């Protein structure tokens, strides 16, 4: 077995992940190879350090309040979605009524009607295009740059 493979096994030795046979191969190899023995001893110290590492613990209240915080945010999010849908419906209804009013009003000159309607039409096309870009293009591009 080559050195690289042995070193890989050595790196897994302290993770308790080697099978009996693999352990035996490592142990036998260590008896005759001083380079790998050194690697093995270094790994033991390294594992000792790593096993003593942990993340700083947050205060207990963080865990006690965790669920209520998630729940409240969830509820607020649902409220926000309903509010947005309602607002969109009202805006569209208002817009529809306004356009209807402009078309039916005989006192507004024809050219002004065309101007206002074109302006509104342009606005709607831009809005839809922007929303489409947000929803589809960004979704696809998202994780392209991530190093794997």
């Amino acid at each position: 077995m080559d050195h690289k493979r042995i070193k890989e096994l050595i790196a897994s030795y302290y993770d308790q992940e080697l099978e009996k046979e693999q352990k035996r191969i490592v142990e036998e190899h260590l008896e005759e190879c001083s380079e790998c023995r050194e690697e093995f001893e270094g790994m033991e110290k390294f594992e000792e350090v790593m096993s003593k590492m942990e993340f700083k613990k947050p205060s207990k209240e963080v865990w006690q309040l965790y669920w209520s915080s998630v729940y409240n945010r969830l509820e607020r999010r649902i409220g926000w979605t309903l509010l947005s849908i309602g607002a969109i419906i009202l805006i569209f209804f208002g817009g529809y009524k306004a356009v209807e009013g402009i078309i039916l009003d005989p006192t507004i000159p024809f050219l002004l009607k065309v101007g206002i309607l074109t302006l509104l039409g342009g606005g709607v096309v831009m809005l839809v295009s922007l929303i489409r870009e947000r929803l589809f293009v960004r979704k696809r591009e998202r994780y392209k740059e991530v190093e794997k």
Partner: protein
Amino acid sequence: MRSVQNMAEELGLGKVFVSWAVEPEMKEGRILSETEIIVRVKKGDKEAYQVIVNRYMKRAYYIALGFVRNSQDALDISQEAFIRAFRKLKKFDTQRPFFPWFYQLIKNLCIDYLKRRGQRDEIPLNGVRIMRTEKEDREMKEVLWKGINSLTFEQKEVILLRYFQQCSYNEIADIMEIPVGTVMSSLYYAKKRLKKNVEKYLS
């Protein structure tokens, strides 16, 4: 006999704030399996979701902390992940285990965050008590943490899962959706690099 819940409602406290005191898991006199709980959550049962959140909140927080390196943002991201998971669960295949699916979700949120905000670094490590002086301990922690952050993304993932989540190779393979052999070799390269970084402290 009045339950904690009833008493709290009589006192005008919301259902939410005391509900961590009861155990929905045991409600019908037996412990529900995770799949059964998820099925309930899919039907919109928020109390069932509480069981899931309580079960995984610590892991979620520490996973986010490993990636974003800042405790406040890690807390925020982990909670956001639970909110998104709740909404996405409708499409979740209950035959699959919950945690690997959730891990991908939280990881993507962290990646998004890192791209958006750049980095606000803390050294969130604790626990090294092997050096003679506190100064040396602190120094080593810094070197080690910097080393972890300089690994490739995959190497960093395996190190965080192995040492900070105490996952076995099989668990890491499931969570990251990669073969066990890849876990082993990624860990090997990651350890090799980290060991080199902290070599002078080990002798």
